[in-house]
């Protein structure tokens, strides 16, 4: 309340006969604390957006999309780099669980998060100096075995924490499956090279052609380093155990792609190629086969239809566009041919239980089909090569046995990535390996500092329900689509299939983000409050404040918060900040009470002074 500009004659400035005197400007401000009308108090409480929650390394997606909206690209890049060492890579290869979880997907189309991530990653690659710095050296040495996504991520976080990190890699080039699995037309090698350079710039030593178990032993690791992270991935391809699998012309997906990636491939494919398997690796193999000169490529899967295939739908779609054929519900039971594969023997088959995770039932009652091929590529999963690992740390799943913090018993060895995640029911993917590497690095640091490892107990409120936000503020807008090379031309080249977003497109796409559950300083609450009793020194998440002395609890702000950051909490839950209003006639302590005190003393004052 205000008395500004009000002329108050002297005689009205003293209390008289139960009428409280006019207040001063300052007192006027707190004369009527209407907050005591309130039953429900609005509270700013950020929720976790489902995208952040679904991301394997919990990138602050909502946060960087918001920065992109504001044109603060370098800040956005720096934010993404907290959790993700190579956004240029995941911006291309990630299976984007975030987009599957994106709330906008329930409304019109999910945000093209990966495309914006790539925009930021490429921007970061173009910076002459990266935004990330190594931490102050703490004098401790860590070896990271394996330079795939998990090892890369662990090394990156550890060097930021001040460790002296050495990566040991058995291949001639660093990168793990980023190089030796994911094809060039998804992830060009120069992009990966630049990210590996960034690791070296941070002071990490990368030793290639060093294999643990051969060049370096378990005991060497134990002796030479304060701690070790094992991120050795899955390097051995599975076989289908069909008759004649040892014939010429039978290839395995992983080495097939790895040799192409490392530049050491000698394979020359014939015209007709079959790929066995229905997952992402099989898709990559089929599409790579076209690029290696095959004319007709057929994918043979046990899954009865495309929906059941454990593959990313977009990649499947792009593969079909390139002309790969699908044959469903068949298992390869033998490789036929004289020394060299000439045809495959196929039988109807289906999974006996849950898709992709159960034994296969083959129907041998019906006559077998003969499927003519020049080459067959088997891509039915990978396993780890762990001969060098002490037995006590081997699990039944053929993985490294760890506790829930990624630690091997009470040693200073930790493990991360595919080599621990295989068989846990989670799809194996780069971002999960990155997240694992990050968490393990933080746990390792705790152990090194003598802190106890404790599971997180704070409950997280993930905002899945669109009713908790206000959708009226978000008109429908279509997703910005990345352009693709035309199918006919791309099936012959190693050129990147999916093209980058322009700056304008990236901003437009980021603008579609609801900012689920997280204040993005849109100012709506501030503008619509009838009192108005919402203050903010400047427009920023966390700086909005409700003046609880005045807020009447109308909840207009809560209703009109587009993001659902504001919520109502019953006033009884608070024991602070609740104001009581005294009336002019109630002689109570407090504001009016003080004036009433003066009233009571009135009689004792000389008449003249009144």
């Amino acid at each position, binding site marked *: 309340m205000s008395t500004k500009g*009000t002329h108050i004659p002297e005689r009205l400035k003293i209390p008289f006969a139960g009428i409280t005197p006019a207040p001063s400007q300052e007192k006027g401000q707190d004369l009527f604390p209407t907050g005591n009308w309130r039953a429900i108090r609005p509270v700013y409480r950020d929720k976790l957006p489902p995208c952040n929650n679904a991301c394997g390394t919990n990138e602050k997606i909502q946060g960087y999309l918001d920065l992109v909206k504001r044109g603060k690209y370098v800040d956005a890049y720096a934010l993404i780099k907290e959790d993700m060492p190579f956004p240029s890579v995941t911006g291309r290869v990630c299976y984007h669980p975030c987009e599957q979880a994106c709330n906008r997907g329930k409304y019109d189309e999910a945000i093209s998060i990966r495309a914006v991530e790539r925009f930021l990653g490429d921007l970061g690659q173009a910076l002459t100096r990266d935004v990330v710095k190594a931490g102050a050296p703490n004098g401790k040495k860590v070896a990271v075995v394996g330079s795939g996504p998990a090892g890369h991520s662990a090394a990156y976080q550890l060097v930021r924490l001040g460790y002296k990190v050495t990566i040991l890699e058995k291949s001639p080039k660093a990168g793990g499956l980023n190089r030796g699995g994911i094809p060039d037309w998804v992830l060009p090698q120069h992009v990966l090279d630049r990210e590996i350079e960034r690791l070296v710039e941070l002071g990490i030593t990368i030793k290639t052609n060093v294999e643990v178990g051969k060049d370096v032993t378990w005991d060497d690791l134990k002796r030479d380093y304060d701690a070790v992270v094992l991120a050795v991935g899955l390097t051995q391809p599975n076989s289908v155990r069909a008759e004649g699998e040892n014939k010429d012309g039978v290839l395995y997906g992983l080495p097939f792609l790895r040799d192409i990636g490392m530049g050491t491939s000698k394979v020359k494919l014939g015209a007709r190629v079959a790929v066995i398997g229905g997952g992402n690796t099989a898709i990559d193999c089929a599409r790579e086969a076209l690029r290696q000169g095959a004319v007709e490529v057929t994918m043979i899967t046990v899954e009865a239809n495309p929906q059941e295939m454990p593959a990313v739908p977009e990649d499947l779609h792009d593969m079909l566009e390139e002309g790969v054929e699908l044959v469903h519900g068949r298992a390869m039971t033998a490789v036929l041919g004289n020394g060299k594969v000439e045809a495959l023997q196929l039988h109807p088959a289906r999974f006996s239980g849950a898709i992709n995770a159960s034994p296969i039932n083959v129907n041998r009652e019906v006559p077998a089909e003969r499927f003519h091929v020049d080459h067959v590529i088997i891509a039915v999963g990978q396993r780890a090569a762990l001969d060098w690992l002490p037995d006590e740390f081997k699990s039944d799943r053929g993985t490294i046995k760890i506790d829930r913090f990624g630690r091997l018993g009470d040693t200073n060895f930790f493990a991360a990535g595919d080599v621990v995640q295989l068989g846990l029911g989670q799809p194996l993917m780069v971002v999960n390996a990155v997240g694992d590497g990050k968490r393990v690095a933080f746990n390792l640091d705790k152990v090194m500092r003598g802190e106890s490892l404790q599971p997180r107990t704070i409950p997280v409120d993930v905002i899945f329900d669109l009713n908790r936000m206000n959708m009226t503020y978000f008109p429908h807008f279509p997703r910005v689509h990345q352009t693709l090379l035309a199918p006919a031309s791309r099936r012959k080249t190693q050129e990147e299939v999916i093209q980058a977003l322009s700056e304008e497109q990236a901003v437009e796409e980021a603008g579609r983000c609801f900012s689920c559950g997280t204040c993005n300083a849109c100012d709506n609450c501030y503008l619509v409050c009838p009192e108005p009793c919402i203050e903010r020194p400047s427009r920023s998440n966390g700086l909005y404040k409700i003046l609880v002395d005045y807020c009447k609890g109308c909840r207009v702000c809560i209703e009109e918060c587009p993001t659902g950051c504001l919520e109502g909490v019953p006033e009884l839950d608070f024991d602070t900040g609740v104001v009581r209003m005294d009336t002019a006639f109630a002689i109570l302590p407090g504001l009016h009470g003080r004036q009433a005190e003066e009233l009571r003393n009135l009689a004792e004052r000389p008449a003249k002074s009144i």
Partner: protein
Amino acid sequence: MSAIEVQRQLLPILDSPNQGARFYNPELPSSEPFVPGHRTCAGCGPSIQYRMTSKAAGDNTILIGPTGCMYVANSSYLCTPYNVPWAHTQIGSAGSFTAGVAAAYEAMIRKGKWKGAYPNIICEAGDGSASDIGLASISGALYRNHDCLIICYDNEQYANTGIQASSRTPYGGMTTFSPPGPMVPEAKKLYPKDLARMMAAGHPHCYVATASVGYPIDLMNKVRKGLNHKGAAYLMVYTPCQKGFVYETPRSIDLGRLVVECGLYPIWEWDPEKRQYDYSFRPQNMRPVSEYLKLQGRFGHLHTQHIANLQKFANEQWQMMGVELPEALLQAADAKNLVNMAAAEEAVTVAETV
């Protein structure tokens, strides 16, 4: 005699908060001419309007408050929530008082006694004042073209005296003066006075517009256009009153959107230069009136025929704006396709309490 220099404040127009798919309000002025501590009801629509209007106008502003909630519930013990000069005036003299303030500044400037920029002179009259009791005085101020902005904050009834019908109360709206009963089941038989069009038609040299608290930036921009207009301007703003409309307080802004989306409150501007209406404002959605009515106790007694009548009325408003009617809205104007208000029984008890 040389021409008199009048320094004017030209207030910039604010950007739309809808930037493509992104919702983000433009940078708002930092001044706060309206401060908390007043005793209007929680969620009061007129207060929301005051907050937005005064923020758009800024600190060099004089407010005039004819009797109504925005005076009575706000000013006591010689203090008010207005952090700029404010004066109460009698409910019937909204226009004459405002004209007097404007004339006084004109005279002071002529005599060289006022050096600064010409202040924003804003009268905030309730609909009771603007459409009934003070109509003549407001028409006079507009007609004489005093440099001021007269706002009718339209809560569609005399709120402050306990909810009585005004000539802005809609057809079917229950108030203590228009209760539903066996003889008049729809509560109010007459349709609301087309006040803003009356002002535009009668004073074509004035800037006239309608707005709603459901569209804050549009409202603030119309305030600024009205103030920038040299001469008199008139603005009629939809401001829900939770006490009289009987709704849940968080809905205040939502109702401001719904009333427009239902076609019951056409949003337009009258351009005094071109002498024509601008009907280009389009809400995001078009909805049947029942979606608006069902949120309010004051319509709880309506029968299908009454709802159909209101839909017909809304459809006429859309047609006036040159909007083609979707089939669903034409259907909704037929009582056969409607159901009675679900809250009818509850509304009876409410009727006894307001």
